[in-house]
């Protein structure tokens, strides 16, 4: 007898979820590593460029989204943010938050 559709969907979601979480973590790490070139290793900056290692996750996400639609004035970040989708932005913000939990 075939399991109810609801159960199949839930099973599929359960199997997908760890994979999705893992993919997000890897993506967050990859983006954060790219950010380090300007913002410093682990997001700790020397000089005029902002540090990004101590932002609240929601502030991090809001800032990148604001740069992306030019609601916030920047120099380079308006261009860079346009190369990131919503999943990227959440992933990198989450990764920096994870670094702080050492």
């Amino acid at each position, binding site marked *: 007898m075939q399991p109810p559709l609801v159960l199949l969907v839930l099973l599929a979601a359960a199997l997908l979820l760890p994979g999705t979480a893992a993919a997000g973590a*890897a993506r967050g790490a990859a983006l954060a590593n790219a950010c380090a070139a300007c913002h410093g*290793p682990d997001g700790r*900056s020397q000089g*005029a460029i902002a540090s990004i290692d101590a932002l609240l996750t929601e502030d991090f996400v809001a800032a990148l989204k604001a740069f992306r639609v030019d609601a916030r004035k920047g120099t*380079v970040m308006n*261009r860079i943010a346009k190369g990131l989708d919503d999943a990227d932005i959440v992933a990198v913000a989450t990764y920096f938050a994870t670094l702080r939990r050492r």
Partner: protein
Amino acid sequence: MANLKHRGAVGRQPERRVTELTRRQFLALAGSLPLTGVYARRAWAQTLARVVVVGGGFGGATCAKYIRRADPAIEVTLVEPRRQFVTCPFSNAVLAGLRDMASLTYGYDGLQQRHGVRVVHATATEIDPSARRVTLDNGSTLAYDRLVLSPGIEVRWGAIEGYDAAASEVFPHAWLAGPQTVLLRQQLEAMADGGLVVITAPEEPFRCPPGPYERASLIAYYLKTHKPRSKLLILDAKDTFTKQELFRTAWVRLYPGLLEWVPRSQSGRVVRVDIRTGTVHTDFEEYKPAVANIIPPQRAAAIARAAGLDDGTGWCTVRASTFESVVHAGVHIIGDATIAAPMPKSAFSANNQAKVCAAAVVALLRGQPAPAPALMNTCYSLVAPDYGISIAAVYQVVDDKIAIVQGSSGVSPLDAPNETRVLEAEYAKSWYANITADVFA
């Protein structure tokens, strides 16, 4: 048996081990890797995974460090002949008398002591891709599971008639930083007021597309400040260059009557130099400058062209997601030696590609697919010490090729106010401090 896992951890503090474990746990989640780690091992020996990285610049040093950060159980050997590295970025500031050579110079202690990279000061001379061995000029060989080459560029001597290694002691290129930078600076200092400085720019592809124009700008700043009757000519083999409108607009404002750009179509292309007579020849003109900086045609450094890795073209083609050579499996190539267009040949690109490559190498050693790469570039140029401009882009991999993400690329606005130029100049200095920490600290 000794606990080989901590071989690289000599001198580290206990808290750092906890940090590594936490990060490794995080990456285990990311890579679905059991905490014990699984690497391809030879049946007859308890060999840990070994990676050899050739070249200790912005690409190689970064890659070595980031592999160790991802997994300290991987043994990483960095092969670099120089005991100290002098950066090309900001060497133009040294030429203008704004910085000293010490400020450009970095050692390998951080990589060795903080990250457990084994550094070998020798030159790689041969690669055997099937045996997975690299031969060094000190007679030894290094076995590898994966090899990363980041050797940078070499000058194509003779591509400009008369421009050989001896000629570069009279007309420096200073396109590899170090003694050449010092030589060119000394020549500028020795030049009398009213002298002619010539900078020649080659056709693409070459290392650092905006470099010749930043160099011209900062030398013009030096001349305007100290030798104002002097003249500077850029003799270009091209008719256009990167950030052209931004540079030219700034030059009109900052260096009128001092700096002139001569494009190819107006006989700007240098075809011959004669160091006996001190003459620089273009298609239809000749100049006898007091100082000549020849930025010559280039190609990937020799080791990147070994074993056919460049297919005879002078530059290496790689797979976009992993930077693995399309010619030999197990060999990755990053930085200026690669064809990674539309990513420019820049220190930023090399550092960025190094991190993508590191993640790919670690995944491949675990028998896993490489993660999606986060590729981007940002290049700052100083037109004057307080006048900065930038170009930036984010890239993605489409059909195993690198492509710009639509809308994410661009340069500083042409009509930006002075405050923006000042801010971007400050950001340029901050970028330099941060990237050198990212590479060497």
